């Protein structure tokens, strides 16, 4: 376990690093099923609106488009961050990561605003099966982003303190996988909740 593979990028340097990345991929597999289940519930309940509003009535595209482009951009930027890390540019890497996290905050702000609008219009999570499923699906994704913000910040602090080494680079790389994954989930929400919903 102490043997180092010095030709690999920093984040793959030790066997332990490799295993962490591998394990995280498996975890993402589990996350795929988790979100697939939430989607199943949402699809089955999408037109069971009871006395509440339908999706067509409440979805508004402008904020959703903002959310989409914000997340796509952040996903791109964190990719640049990993690239910078691999060519040893600690400063650039940190800048990219910080902007990524800030974009995450923007996304959350827009999403919270969206929720507040629903609630203001009288459609809460208890209004109907549809609203429950919608807000749970969005909320789970949002909670992931929130957690990602905290986690990413913790990693940045560590990189600031200890610099880029096999350990911190490994964490930063794994975090980037997580962030890209959240973007993928959002694309599916964007396509099959919002776009399909307003069709």
């Amino acid at each position: 376990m102490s043997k180092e593979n010095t030709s690999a990028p920093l984040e793959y340097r030790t066997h332990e690093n490799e295993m962490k990345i591998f394990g995280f991929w498996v975890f993402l597999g589990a996350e795929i099923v988790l979100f697939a289940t939430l989607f199943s519930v949402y699809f089955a309940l999408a037109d069971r609106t009871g006395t509440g509003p339908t999706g067509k009535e409440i979805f508004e595209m402008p904020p959703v488009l903002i959310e989409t482009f914000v997340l796509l951009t952040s996903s791109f930027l964190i990719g640049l961050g990993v690239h910078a890390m691999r060519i040893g540019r600690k400063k650039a890497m940190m800048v990219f990561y910080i902007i990524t996290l800030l974009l995450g905050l923007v996304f959350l702000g827009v999403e919270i605003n969206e929720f507040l609008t629903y609630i203001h219009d009288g459609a809460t999570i208890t209004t109907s099966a549809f609203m429950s499923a919608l807000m749970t699906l969005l909320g789970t994704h949002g909670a992931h982003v929130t957690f990602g913000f905290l986690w990413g910040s913790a990693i940045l602090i560590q990189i600031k303190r200890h610099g880029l080494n096999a350990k911190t680079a490994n964490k930063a790389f794994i975090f980037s996988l997580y962030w890209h994954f959240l973007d993928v989930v959002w694309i599916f929400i964007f396509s099959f909740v919002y776009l399909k919903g307003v069709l």
Partner: protein
Amino acid sequence: MKKKVLILPFVMAFLTLVLSGCQPLMIFDPKGPNARTLSNTIIMSIIVMLVILLVVYVLLINMLSKYRASKQAPDYEPPHEEGSKVLEVVWTVIPILIVTALAIVTVFTTSKVEKKPEGYGNKEPLVIYASSSNWKWHFSYPEQGVETVNYVNIPTDRPIEFRLYSFGPITSFWIPQLAGQKYAMSDMLTKIHLAADQEGSYMGRNSNFSGEGFAQMEFEAQAMSQKDFDEWIKDVKAKEPKLTEKEFDKLLKTSFVGRKSYSSTHLTFRPAPMEHGKHGKHDMENMKDKDMEGMDMSH
């Protein structure tokens, strides 16, 4: 020693049959075409399974009696065997064939019992709504305009269509000697088709756990001639009170009520849910107009 274990299930089967008093088991004592289809299906499948079991048991007994260490020379070295293509194909293909046959039987018999039983010409089925509430069964006869609680009478020479739903937990409507069971749920209607070809009294019950009074949630299904049935209807219509909304709400709240009869049904003031596929939207249809307006404002 080992062989004793192998005959054990058969000894047990024999013993249990004796102990159960030599009456035919309820499932194998059908009193209507649908239950008979199921009974035959089950007997057929049991025979298939016994054959499979026999194969496994014969093989096992063979291995255990021939290859036990005590029968081998002390210096016997078992050979290295990778496996056998031929055998593997055999024990893959034969089960696939068996499964295919069983699947065909399944589809065939399922569609048979999900339809109006044959042999009644083009007689329209008698529709009875059966709904459950904690812990009783309500039977509504829309055609006749009567309602009963915890017992149901049916004519023998007419197919019956039960339409099931629930005022609470999921329940399962089951008259083993007449037909297989089906769930009754709060938001959708399910159906059972059956017919009784012998007069008699049959046990019916909820078989899906629904809480404290579940064990007592039985009813009697009595099959009678059309004449007796008509007479009974006439009787109920003449002698029994109407079922008011208030009375019905009281019924729903009471846990155990015994048998009751009424000369009108609750369907008029408490309609049954939609069939599946349309459900979920029925709330919309039931909605008052003012709710509708309120909703429009939500944009």
